[in-house]
């Protein structure tokens, strides 16, 4: 039998680090007192939408699109399933806040206060070390974007979507709301009406970028909305890894985040989208994320849903060409008082397509983690394959998790499988491990790391550590003995 010694040693070091480190929510939930230079004020109607379009000096097609989306938004009912959304205060939400007029390519030109915020969050440093390009958005607008010259020279485009609408209107028009039309759902329609910011990333044919590109979203105001729209296009034979991170301060009044992410993985391309969502507990997080995956292309969704009050998120892959594949890996942490209604959709539309979905959830105290998935295999998607794995970890004796997989299989030659496990950090488990000399802290860390073990190689180690810290933070009030 082979034991992976190096991995075990790595795990030991990790546990050692965890013992020493401490984590505070102030590290990312701090408040800044920046006043936006422009705001549409609270509430949403036709004139607010026109005002947004006006201030952005948009082309007429976009203005008309927004107004149409607003109509759809107003006519669509709220979802009749899923978590309670009655806390969203539509009338008292601020739909557009412009922090500044700057859209800079250099951090030196970003206003000090905004720059300080991103510096505290470690964004410029990360860009220096790991990234091929970076976009930073503060409230409704992108304030910074930069792409390393080597990629710019190869024709890669990376900027906030507002800039892209102006600089590359035809290219944007080809993709804008094709995968996620405004009619898709109420929140997608809302985004269509008031969208602002988000990133546009275009990777030309055959260009393979080995470093990731990142956008970081910071929501600052109280009772505000952030409605970014991101489009990633991996042209034929290209390769790209795009990362998103987001945080917000905690406020008494809830905010709303309703984004659209569209990914277009053209023939033979490889696209990877990673997001680590760490919103504060005063944010409703309702994004719609979807990928079109063409012949022989590979799509990978990697998601960490750590924060927010309520999250509803089901990244979807439409496997449109022969041999297209998708891999969806999501880790949800439902802290006390929060709901994570997350999952994935895989729509098999062509022969020999494959999907693999791994959903891991962790529930703490009364935190509720729900897996909701859709697997559809259309007639003609011959010999397509799918595998869905749902693992839940319950941190307290009273924690709960729920699984709602939905399968629609219309192709007799298709094969699919489901797997589910439930682990626990209950009193008995902790008592057992502690009786062997481990502290409560160490015992629960080991269970969490063990739970993430099979996805460790697919997620960055730092992410696992971060996850562990957050869990410890949420568990802090249980009086752990360290």
């Amino acid at each position: 039998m082979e034991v992976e010694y190096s991995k075990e040693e790595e795990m030991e070091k990790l546990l050692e680090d965890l013992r020493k480190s401490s984590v505070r929510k102030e590290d990312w939930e701090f408040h800044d007192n920046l006043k936006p230079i422009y705001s549409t004020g609270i509430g949403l109607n036709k004139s607010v939408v026109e005002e947004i379009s006006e201030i952005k000096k948009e082309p007429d097609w976009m203005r008309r699109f927004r107004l149409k989306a607003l109509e759809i938004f107003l006519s669509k009912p709220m979802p009749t399933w899923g978590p309670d959304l009655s806390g969203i205060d539509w009338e008292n939400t601020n739909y557009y806040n412009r922090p500044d007029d700057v859209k800079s390519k250099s951090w030196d030109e970003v206003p000090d206060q905004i720059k300080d915020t991103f510096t505290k969050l470690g964004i410029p440093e990360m860009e220096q070390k790991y990234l091929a390009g970076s976009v930073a958005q503060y409230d409704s607008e992108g304030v910074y974007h930069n792409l390393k010259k080597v990629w710019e020279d190869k024709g890669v485009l990376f900027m906030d979507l507002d800039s892209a609408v102006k600089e590359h209107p035809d290219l944007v028009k080809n993709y804008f709301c094709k995968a996620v039309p405004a009619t898709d759902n109420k929140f997608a329609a809302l985004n269509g009406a008031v969208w602002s910011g988000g990133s546009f990333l275009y990777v030309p044919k055959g260009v393979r970028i080995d470093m990731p590109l990142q956008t970081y979203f910071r929501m600052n105001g109280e009772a505000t909305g952030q409605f970014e729209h991101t489009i990633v296009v991996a042209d034929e034979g290209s390769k790209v890894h795009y990362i998103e991170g987001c945080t917000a301060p905690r406020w008494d009044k809830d905010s709303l985040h309703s984004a659209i992410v569209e990914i277009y993985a053209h023939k033979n391309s490889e696209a990877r989208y990673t997001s680590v969502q760490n919103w504060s507990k005063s944010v409703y997080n309702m994004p719609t994320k979807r990928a079109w995956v063409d012949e022989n292309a590979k799509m990978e969704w990697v998601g960490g849903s750590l924060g927010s009050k309520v999250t509803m998120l089901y990244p979807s892959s439409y496997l449109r060409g022969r041999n297209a594949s998708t891999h969806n890996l999501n880790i949800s942490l439902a802290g006390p008082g929060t709901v994570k209604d997350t999952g994935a959709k895989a729509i098999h539309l062509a022969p020999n397509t494959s999907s693999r979905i791994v959903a891991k959830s962790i529930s703490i105290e009364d935190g509720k983690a729900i897996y909701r998935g859709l697997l559809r295999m259309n007639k003609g998607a011959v010999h397509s394959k799918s595998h869905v794995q749902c693992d839940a970890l319950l941190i307290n004796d009273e924690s709960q998790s729920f699984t709602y997989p939905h399968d629609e299989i219309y192709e007799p030659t298709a094969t699919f499988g489901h797997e589910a496990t439930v682990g626990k950090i209950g009193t008995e488990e902790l008592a057992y491990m502690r009786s062997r000399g481990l502290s409560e802290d160490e015992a629960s860390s080991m269970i969490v790391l063990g739970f993430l073990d099979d996805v460790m190689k697919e997620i960055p180690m730092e992410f696992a550590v971060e996850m562990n810290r957050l869990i410890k933070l949420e568990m802090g009030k249980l009086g752990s003995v360290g």
Partner: protein
Amino acid sequence: MPTLEIKNLSASVEGKEILKGVNLKVSGGEIHALMGPNGAGKSTLGNVLIGHPNYVINGGSITLDGKDLTNATPEERAKAGLFLAFQSPVAVVGVKISSFLRAAYKQLHPDDNIKLQEFYDMVKKELRRVGLDESFLSRSVNDGFSGGERKRFEIVQMMILKPKIVILDEIDSGLDVDALKLVAEEIKEYHNESVGFLIITHYQRILKDIRPEFVHVLMDGKVIRSGDHELSDRIEEEGYEFIRGV
């Protein structure tokens, strides 16, 4: 030579008093058997001794080598040298035996800088000795184990973690004859002048292999009779009635 001293210990679980003044003393080199009918509080004593959070101590004291452990955390007790082989060991899904034992060993023997590979070789050897395949090393703790495998793994932990006072709670239940023989061999191998045993059992089977010097009978939350193996032999023949009758 280690000494575990339990003085006038009373404890309750879920508000119900189970132990009502237990006195016991276990020293290195000694083997004690704690017998008693179902519901007498035998397992409660084991859980109270290791500081299980569901059990509340109402009075009395627990000391090991003069160190007061009455209010100590489970990990402090483990570090002091106390070990319980659980009656029904719980599964810890996702935590591999390898990393679990390694982490526990580091806590209990911080000065031993044994290499990872060497340590695993030691664990594999112990696994084999109790009849478990060495592939158990990479399995989750007790996850999917049969009752007997769990018991064997408790003994492996004892051998690896090297405690001073060992409490075996119904170690023989779930073990077939051959397995019991292996386990008894291990216990005998581990038993020496610096290790004391408290064997909790409600019948004789294991005591045939391991002869205790001291036999105690726990009934209604108290040790009501102590003696030598003649006492356990008589219980085997007559049951507990003769003690109750006194």
